[in-house]
């Protein structure tokens, strides 16, 4: 029931907002088209401003992934991981989730195909994928758009959040599906 409502909302929200906001504007005497154009002018500039930041981040991450460094890291940490409840099969996904959106989606799909769509591992992987956004993408886009270069405590804080989300994903799945 709740799910149906939420799905309907995500289906209708955009068209309703696109009509509803100008409607309220018209009622309150706003010259909606003129104001829209004035605000929209900034859009292209913002997109262009993001380019150098995104190229920098994505190239570094792309090279890191292509080199096979990820596999080395996973193998090195495997003995450590096997002492916890966190399945070692999901460790590469947990790392990749912070680095690459498309990469982690491909890896999750791969895990689901390999272990079966209703397996515990697949559900954990899906939960892990859905429980956070790609840290470095968000960082490059949001700070890039306004030209902020010194990010202060943003990366450590976001990494703590991702770590907690990953552990919670494993723990909650064990609790719910066992």
């Amino acid at each position: 029931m709740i799910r149906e409502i939420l799905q309907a909302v995500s289906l209708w929200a955009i068209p309703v907002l696109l009509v509803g906001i100008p409607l309220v504007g018209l009622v309150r005497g706003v010259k909606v088209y003129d104001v829209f154009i004035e605000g929209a002018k900034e859009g292209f500039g913002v997109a262009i401003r993001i380019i150098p930041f995104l190229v920098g981040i994505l190239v570094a991450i792309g090279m890191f992934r292509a080199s096979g460094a990820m596999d080395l890291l996973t193998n090195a940490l495997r003995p450590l991981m096997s002492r916890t409840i966190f399945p070692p099969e999901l460790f590469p996904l947990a790392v990749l989730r912070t680095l690459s959106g498309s990469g982690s989606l491909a890896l999750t799909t791969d895990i689901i195909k390999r272990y079966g769509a209703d397996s515990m591992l697949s559900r954990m992987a899906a939960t892990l994928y859905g429980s956070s956004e790609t840290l470095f993408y968000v960082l490059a886009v949001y700070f890039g758009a306004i030209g902020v270069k010194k990010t202060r405590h943003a990366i450590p804080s976001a990494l703590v959040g991702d770590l907690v989300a990953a552990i919670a994903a494993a723990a909650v799945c064990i609790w719910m599906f066992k």
Partner: protein
Amino acid sequence: MLNYIWFGLMAIALIVAIFTGNAGALTKASVDSAKTAVEISLGLAGIMTLWLGIMRVAEQAGLVAMLSRILRPISRLLFPEVPPDHPAIGAMVMSVSANMLGLNNAATPLGIKAMEELQTLNPDKETASNPMVTFMVLNTAGVQFIPTTIIGVLAAAGAQAPTAIIPTTLVATLCGAVAAVTTAKLLQRFFPERRSDVERRRPDGWTAAGPAATVDQPIGDPPVSAQRPTQDDANEVGP
């Protein structure tokens, strides 16, 4: 910090490649990633233009201010540095709501708009302010009610109950969001907000893109960085 992470990722890649002989893959990855990055940015241009326009209409109609008033208790807790009536609050609220509903196309432009509003309050335009970090961290935590993409993947792979992961994802993402925001609040005092005066004397890839519109511009700015255009100079893009 980004300086070290950025360089570190590429340096590790090169060192690993020396042992595996994977140099060709590195070259290909760098070319492909650069192309993808530009495609993503240009892809954003359309929805960015649309939502920034709509957002301006919402502002003029008083909707943003209304939204900020309703959510004042929460915003005061999360962003005590931002005046409660500031348009930044409205933009942040709209972006986070769009994220929760899974409307990624709207969430990113609204989030960038929120960042621009926060930038107007920021004394040092090259350094992230406390509310900026809190807001960014809230976004990377990615709180959403229905993880549509991954449910689609599960369903396509023949899952009996692809939606079984909705509650688990919600719990995990909320844990992550609370942890991330708490960490940001705890760490913010250890990272001073105004450091640019020291940093600018030491130009490197990420910090030397030119002086921002700060009040206290150093007199002895190095000529290299002075010649470069500023990142936030909109004229750079052209008409």
